[in-house]
């Protein structure tokens, strides 16, 4: 069988795609071409806009501007089913399977067709597909009996059963073991060789180089570039510095007016800390570092390398497996009240979207603002009004709901709340993710001002942010320390991108 692969007319063409959410521009003027029979990787940090873009392509959202063409025809999807009818299917990070149903039942679920459920016929087709692509799935098994990897293959099977031409996979490797990833890549190649296209969303560099035909790098909602992987591989096949740089941003340091730091005593000491992740694996492996008074200490790494688990352990939200965390040479716990924490997920952890600003401000401050059993709402309101003025927060009034603030203004409020705790230590996790330049600079300046008053632990995947702010940088990869670098060591700073990708330069 010969396949005529038409390289001139792309299967999918997205032109000038824009999508805004209240306060955040998720996609800006994005152009994307997907050819028939290619594996096209979308690479970018969390929050770069990859998933939003694919939700637009698969009909989950509608774009605010821009056009989508399928096989040269302009389309507009109202729903995922619309997209499926045009041969575009997406496998989401959270599988959409019914645990108590069999594989076959899940596969036909939601499909238009006869009311009668012809189990035998469906099972036959499913088995054929399963064999053809090497999925080895028993169509009569129930979903809860299957491993995560197998469930993912059921999702793939479901898309193949619907005969999609374009299969979108949102971070499919995030839940898999290395062996399962290898197996997934074999399946992906087999699907591609049949002339179907796969869009592979990930933020892991090595994987992209291994499996893609084309790579599109997104950063802060924009396309940075589209390249072939051969151009990015070094001579020894390792990740190139360039790719890492494209993803995390160019090393142009914004002038935020930073003076050299003036460190005093140790504030936070972390000794051989190990922490387990959600699936019981060791996410943080024997990490040691210390943060001094008056410095900004950054933990830099591509998302998913143990940063989240590390922060949760430091803030008492996750148990420690082994090692010690010392605050001002006292064992942690007693001092937690003096640690302010700006969480990465400001919408879900950092605030309550449906509550007014005043009540959000009280979240971490409620003990300071209590008289007997009563809340001193008037005093809190005064504090919020002062913060709104000091931090230049664009809010119509303090009775507004947090949901009604833009992302940048909400983050400023969270920052103001953290500062009003008068913290000795501020832990800031991805403080500017998804924010526009203006808000980013405001927040950077505020963090720098806070440096005088205590120590700051900054967790970020954004190289620009880290290089603009940090005095010392710990590069983390797969839960381990790659290196700890001073911001003045220019030679080593040049290698930070490589370190983030897990590559140590040979001496």
């Amino acid at each position, binding site marked *: 069988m010969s396949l005529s692969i038409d390289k001139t007319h792309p299967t999918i063409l997205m032109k000038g795609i824009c999508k805004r959410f*209240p306060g955040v521009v998720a996609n800006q003027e994005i152009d994307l071409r997907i050819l028939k029979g290619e594996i096209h990787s979308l690479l970018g940090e969390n929050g770069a806009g990859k998933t939003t873009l694919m939700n637009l392509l698969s009909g989950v959202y509608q774009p605010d501007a821009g056009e989508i063409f399928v096989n040269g025809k302009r389309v*507009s999807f109202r729903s995922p089913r619309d997209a499926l009818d045009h041969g575009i299917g997406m496998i989401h990070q959270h599988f959409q399977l019914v645990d108590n149903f069999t594989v076959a039942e899940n596969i036909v679920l939601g499909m238009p067709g006869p009311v009668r459920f012809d189990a035998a016929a469906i099972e036959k087709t499913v088995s054929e597909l399963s064999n053809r692509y090497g999925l080895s799935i028993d169509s009569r098994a129930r979903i809860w009996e299957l491993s995560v990897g197998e469930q993912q293959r059921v999702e793939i099977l479901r898309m193949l059963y619907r005969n999609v031409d374009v299969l979108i996979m949102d971070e499919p490797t995030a839940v898999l073991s290395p062996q399962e990833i290898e197996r997934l890549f074999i399946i992906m190649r087999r699907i591609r060789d049949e002339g179907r296209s796969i869009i592979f969303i990930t933020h892991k560099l090595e994987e992209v180089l291994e499996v893609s035909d084309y790579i599109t790098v997104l950063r802060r909602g924009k396309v940075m570039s589209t390249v072939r992987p051969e151009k990015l591989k070094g001579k020894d096949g390792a990740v190139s510095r360039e790719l890492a740089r494209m993803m995390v941003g160019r090393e142009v340091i914004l002038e935020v007016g930073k003076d050299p730091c003036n460190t005093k005593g140790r504030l936070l000491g972390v000794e051989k800390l190990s922490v387990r992740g959600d699936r019981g694996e060791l996410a943080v492996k024997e990490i040691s570092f210390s943060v001094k008074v008056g410095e900004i200490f950054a933990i830099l790494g591509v998302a998913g390398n143990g940063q989240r688990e590390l922060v949760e352990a430091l803030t*008492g*939200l996750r148990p420690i497996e082994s090692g010690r965390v010392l605050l001002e040479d006292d064992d942690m716990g007693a001092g*937690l009240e003096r640690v302010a*924490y700006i*969480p990465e*997920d400001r919408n*879900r*952890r*950092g*605030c*309550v*979207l*449906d*509550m007014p600003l005043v*009540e959000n401000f*009280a*979240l*971490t401050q*409620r003990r300071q603002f*209590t008289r007997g*059993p*009563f*809340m001193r*709402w008037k005093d809190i309101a005064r504090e919020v009004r002062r913060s709104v003025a000091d931090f230049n927060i664009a809010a119509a009034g303090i009775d507004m709901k947090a949901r*009604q603030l833009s992302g940048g203004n909400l983050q400023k409020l969270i920052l103001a709340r953290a500062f009003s705790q008068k913290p000795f230590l501020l832990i800031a996790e991805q403080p500017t993710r998804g924010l526009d330049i203006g808000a980013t600079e405001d927040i950077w300046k505020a963090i720098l001002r806070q440096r005088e008053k205590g120590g700051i632990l900054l967790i970020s995947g954004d190289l620009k942010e880290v290089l603009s702010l940090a005095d010392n940088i710990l590069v983390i990869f797969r839960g381990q320390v790659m290196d700890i670098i001073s911001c003045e060591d220019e030679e080593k700073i040049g290698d930070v991108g490589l370190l983030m990708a897990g590559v140590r330069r040979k001496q």
Partner: protein
Amino acid sequence: MRVRLKRRLRPLTWAGHLFVPASIIAALALGALLFGVVGINPARAYLEMLIGGFGSFYNFSETLVRATPLILCGLSVGLASKMLIWNIGAEGQLVMGGIAGSGVALFGSAYIPSALLIPAILIAGFVGGAVWALIPAFLKARLKVNEIITSLMLNYVAILYLEHLYFGPWRDPAGRGFPGTAMFPDGAWLTRFFGTRIHLGLILGLAAAVLIWFLLSYTRWGYEISVIGANLQAALYARMNITHNILWVMAISGGLAGLAGICETAGIHYRLQQGLAVGNGYLGIIVAWLGRLQPGAIVIISILLGGLMVGGDQVQIALHVPSSISLALQGAILFCVLAGQVFREYEWVIETEKV
């Protein structure tokens, strides 16, 4: 061109609230259809209903009597729901409150000074419901057992235990085989007002509504309850003690339902008998959510629903319709009002396709 629902980004305007009367009109239209089918003039039926529920002082007093357990159960479910705990067990807690309070009324009146008898009965009712609610609360807090299942299943346990008591050990020996306990002594009867059947329970319900409103609006504990319910992740981030809160909130929630139970027994029936578990605990769920978990609204919704039920009985008697018609009408009204709630969160947008 097509029309679709879109999440509201701005708060409701004045005109936006028109969905409330609109959904009631829709409900009445649906009900009219229902009456039409059985050959009754809908206008007359509605008039009878209005008179039955609110037409005279006596009729209105009966509405308030009917609303009393609804207020307490609505507050019970509403408080738990505020923390996003699904207390489906108000029915069972109501029954256990009734049993505990009745126990004091039947067997304690000889030992308790008369001035303290009513308070003792009410406290026993509250504690009975609270203890029953603490079973699912403890299972949830300690073992992460889903409270929907456990609180629901405990309803059947409570109801069967109630039946066991009045058919068996607590049955009135002088009752000639009638299933029920002996009549409570006079001192255990809740005070009634204005020569109607309105009793102390209504006052307790209104007081509870004020207290819960105050708790949620002005205290730190109330604030924590709201945060835990609105966003558990944020509550953990703010270091709130979830276990502690689950236990206390469920205890109060169960206590309020238990109070509803003992107020029905000591305020209306004066004995433990059939007719205690008539679904007030389940109606409390509807009342709580229709009132959007706000104590004041829960009181108003309870009174309206009470009027609907008393008025429905009136229609049944006056127009000789089967009782199922009145129940179907209640269903139609609830259905439309609940469906109309969509417009609180969503709005219609008309989209014109660009060509």
